[in-house]
């Protein structure tokens, strides 16, 4: 079962996990991305491309499900303004055994860094700037191709 979501509300990890457990899963792996607090960021804003974003998340979740024979995959991404410590993204994968669940989780987080239309804008003390894409993200996504 594939479930993707783009939302401005906080991410409920327990509810997301409940949705991927069952259906024969012996293993569930999750990744949670948080707003980093250690570099002076006061507010992080996430912009996205409504419509394309949901389709892109659905596409990578479907690819992961086929590639790793998952029983379930969930991707939930926050948009809007958030503060250090808040969850930006949750990826949860379920499979009969742990290696597929763990690999699929890493695959999904790498792919959504480069394949989903989100943009980050950081505000420190008095200045806001758009976060530049990193070459290491492209390299991380490339290793799965």
């Amino acid at each position: 079962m594939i479930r993707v979501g783009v939302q401005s509300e906080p991410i409920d990890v327990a509810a997301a996990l409940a949705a991927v457990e069952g259906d024969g899963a012996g293993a569930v792996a999750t990744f949670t991305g948080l707003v980093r607090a250690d570099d002076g960021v006061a507010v992080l804003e996430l912009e996205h491309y409504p419509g394309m974003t949901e389709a892109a998340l659905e596409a990578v979740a479907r690819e992961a499900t086929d590639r790793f024979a998952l029983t379930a995959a969930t991707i939930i991404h926050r948009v809007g303004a958030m503060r250090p410590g808040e969850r930006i993204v949750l990826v949860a994968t379920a499979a009969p055994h742990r290696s597929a669940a763990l690999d699929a989780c890493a695959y999904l987080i790498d792919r959504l860094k480069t394949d989903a239309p989100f943009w980050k804008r950081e505000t420190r003390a008095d200045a806001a700037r758009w976060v530049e894409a990193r070459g290491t993200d492209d390299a991380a996504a490339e290793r799965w191709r």
Partner: protein
Amino acid sequence: MDVLYFAWVREAVGKGSENVAPPADVTTVTELLDWLARDSVPHATAFADRTRLRAAIDQQFVPLDALLAGAREVAIFPPVTGG
């Protein structure tokens, strides 16, 4: 066609979207950017460095030299930074 802008491209152009009717000789995303930039300082500024721009046609990522070929919605934005 509808042209959408996101992130700093949206801020530089000064709007999130616009409906345009380019002439028939505008056949690629790059030519569309050239055409939009021709008479507008904000567009020209936003599109000055093409290495910083990415595009989607009808919500699929495409290279800037992609053919428009009946596109209904073209989006112009910086490289993505989600996750």
